[in-house]
């Protein structure tokens, strides 16, 4: 859900005036949302960690171009969405070229921010369903179901019509319920 815009705008202004600590505060406010969006899109910790850092770096570099017309929340989600999708493309390309490093894949399964066995199992089940959804459906489903965004907010982030997003969500729901029957 959107964070308080007034606080966001004040922090952006402070940062643009040269207050570096304001960036840390902004990053602190959004890093979990960025991480978990990327994590659900990409399905593992290492990739999500990479995307989280990339998004924060882009924020640091591009905040000067933020125009204060839309919410910072939407702006950050746009970056997170683009970065996650690009990461998926890159991963598919590497897979196509067989460039996936087996050592990295091994690390993927070991390194994680989820420690409790019960949580790991829950996440694995969730991941199994999400990763079987087509990318567009997965993204809309995550944004609406787990991040609680309205269709209008998602439309703003994805630059798509509300009607198209509703159709994506409908198909995602259909697939999710089928997949859960299989389990």
């Amino acid at each position, binding site marked *: 859900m959107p964070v308080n815009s007034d606080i966001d705008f004040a922090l952006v202004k402070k940062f643009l005036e040269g207050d570096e600590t304001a960036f*840390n505060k902004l*990053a*602190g406010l959004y*890093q*979990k949302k960025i*991480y978990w969006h990327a994590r659900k899109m990409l399905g593992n910790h290492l990739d999500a*960690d990479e995307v*989280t*850092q990339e998004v*924060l*770096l882009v924020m*640091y570099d591009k905040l000067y171009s933020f125009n204060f017309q839309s919410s910072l929340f939407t702006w950050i989600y746009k970056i997170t969405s*683009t*970065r996650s999708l*690009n990461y998926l*493309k*890159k991963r*598919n*390309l*590497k897979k*196509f*070229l*067989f*460039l996936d490093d087996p050592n990295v894949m091994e690390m993927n399964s070991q390194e994680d*921010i*989820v*420690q*409790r066995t019960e*949580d790991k199992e*829950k*996440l694995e*089940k*969730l991941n199994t*369903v999400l990763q079987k959804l087509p990318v567009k459906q997965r993204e809309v489903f995550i944004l609406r*179901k*787990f991040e609680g965004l309205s*269709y209008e907010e998602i439309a703003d982030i994805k630059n798509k019509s509300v009607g198209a997003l*509703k*159709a994506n*969500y*409908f198909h995602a*729901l*259909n697939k*999710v*319920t089928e997949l*859960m029957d299989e389990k």
Partner: protein
Amino acid sequence: MKNKDIILKYLSDMMSDEEKSQFEMRLENDSSLNEDYQKIITKLNLLNEQNQIEDDSNYFSTVIPRVRQKVESKSENKVLKLAPVVSFGIVAVLIFLLQLPKINQNNFSEFNNVSADITNIILDMDFEDFHDFFDNGYIYDYAYYSDKHSGTVFDLMFDEETDYEFGYELIDSDFINSEISLELKDISDEEIGIIYEELLNKKIL
């Protein structure tokens, strides 16, 4: 319409206000619809439950320092940054490689030289020339009129009898595993986009 379709339409907010009221009324009176609705809601609640995960807060305290470190090293290395055209050349070569028929290990070193030459040519090109080079067949002119290399590699590249398994045969070559894979690690989003679109256009992916 099946119960499931109507329920999913309702949950996806694809109904008008009137349809919604009708659905809600039917839900109260139609036991079969109600049963199916409850099943779907139970599944979705289970997903919500699976989403309640406790994460390691120590991890999040490490993210900002790591980003800061990257910001600093980025500004230190700014002067050393390579011109984008260099990476673009590698991207172009990658696309080129993926279009080639199989090259066996015996031709590898000569193939490597040819690739290096083609990379140099591509580095001097703008985007339009690049497309001409591949899409309008200028690469064939280069191949047949170049006197720098023996015909062996080119014969293999353009032999009509060759089984065109685009890309796959090259994937194991040392060239791909060294130069290209290194470049791919640092490739920009723009470049990924270019490669991806080209591979899709050429029906390689």
